[in-house]
């Protein structure tokens, strides 16, 4: 049996201030997804609604948005998990990215930052052993949800961000021929590893168990050890200072 759900959808064209929310009443089954509802709005109520989607099975990350204030992949977020019959769903674009239009954001700033740290998306053989060793950065689907959830990114445009820092940690841990000196320099910066305030929201919302916060803490530990080593003129940081 279908539920009646009111979608309150964020609407904004580039540069339009202030943005507003449009209400749409949608007949939808509880085991359908938020993306199903948005597609129905576009198909039957408002063809001007802009949103992004592709795979419909949590592989591409393109349908990432905020549902009732929390980052979700709308293609795998079931209606029954986020509202009730007669309830309301507030649907908004990701935070901390420029809005292109309605629910679409420009994620290129995140990709530029990931490119700076080597963008380690090449998958080598998976390690065998404990299950947690499978939580590798290569599982990242580049959805940008960690960037949106991070409270530090709310107030700083300069912060490298959880996705890029997780990528940096992966590249340093497994360089595969990449020169990691510049990545160490990027990581050991006030707007990088040291800017994180350990709120763990990046890991809470990550749909792929990448655990960016864990990666940042691993980088911190290595940097602290390298700083101690550098006091005795040893280690990567000391060598960098020495040219």
């Amino acid at each position, binding site marked *: 049996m279908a539920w009646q759900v009111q979608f309150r959808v*964020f609407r904004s064209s580039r540069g339009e201030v202030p943005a507003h929310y449009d209400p749409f009443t949608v007949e939808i089954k509880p085991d359908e997804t938020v993306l199903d509802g948005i597609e129905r709005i576009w198909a039957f109520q408002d063809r001007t609604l802009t949103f992004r989607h592709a795979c419909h099975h949590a592989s591409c990350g393109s349908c990432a948005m905020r549902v009732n204030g929390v980052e979700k992949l709308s293609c795998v977020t079931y209606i029954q998990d986020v509202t009730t019959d007669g309830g309301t769903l507030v649907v908004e674009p990701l935070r901390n990215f420029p809005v292109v239009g309605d629910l679409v954001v420009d994620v290129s700033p995140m990709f530029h930052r990931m490119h700076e740290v080597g963008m380690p998306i090449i998958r080598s053989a998976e390690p065998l052993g404990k299950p947690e060793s499978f939580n590798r950065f290569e599982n990242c689907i580049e959805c940008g949800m960690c960037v949106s959830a991070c409270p530090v990114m709310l107030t700083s445009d300069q912060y490298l961000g959880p996705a890029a820092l997780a990528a940096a940690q992966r590249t340093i841990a497994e360089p595969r021929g990449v020169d990691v000196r510049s990545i160490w320099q990027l990581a050991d910066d006030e707007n990088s590893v040291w800017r994180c305030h350990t709120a763990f929201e990046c890991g809470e919302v990550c749909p792929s168990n990448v655990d960016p916060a864990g990666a940042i803490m691993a980088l911190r530990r290595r940097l602290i050890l390298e700083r101690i080593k550098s006091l005795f003129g040893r280690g990567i940081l000391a060598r960098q200072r020495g040219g």
Partner: protein
Amino acid sequence: MTGNEQHNTALRWGDTVRWFDARRRGLGMWAFALNRITGVLLMIYILVHFVNISVLYLGETAWNQLMDLFRRPPFLIFDVALVLVLLYHGLNGIRLAILALDIGVAQQKRIFWGLMAFGTIVAVFTAFGLFRG
């Protein structure tokens, strides 16, 4: 929607208020927001404390009168609240320092609740001691 717009400044102070919106967020975000709130409260307390101890300049009688006032139950409740704020901020700070060394990151929620349980026990004993005089 300021958070979704591009800004030229490095720090967007206007959006700082959104640090405190932890609705529907995880434990880490609540801990983050509470740490900031308790930090501000401790800063205010230190300023008030400076004003209090400056009463010493008014002489011994004024100081003793102030101390008598502070021993009354309403002020003791304030003292207990101060201990709670101090314990939260301090213990969460220890948690963050441990996590920054990449120790127990996967158990961060358990570490939080463990330290909070310890803090609650300390607060109860402190409150008991304060009210017993």
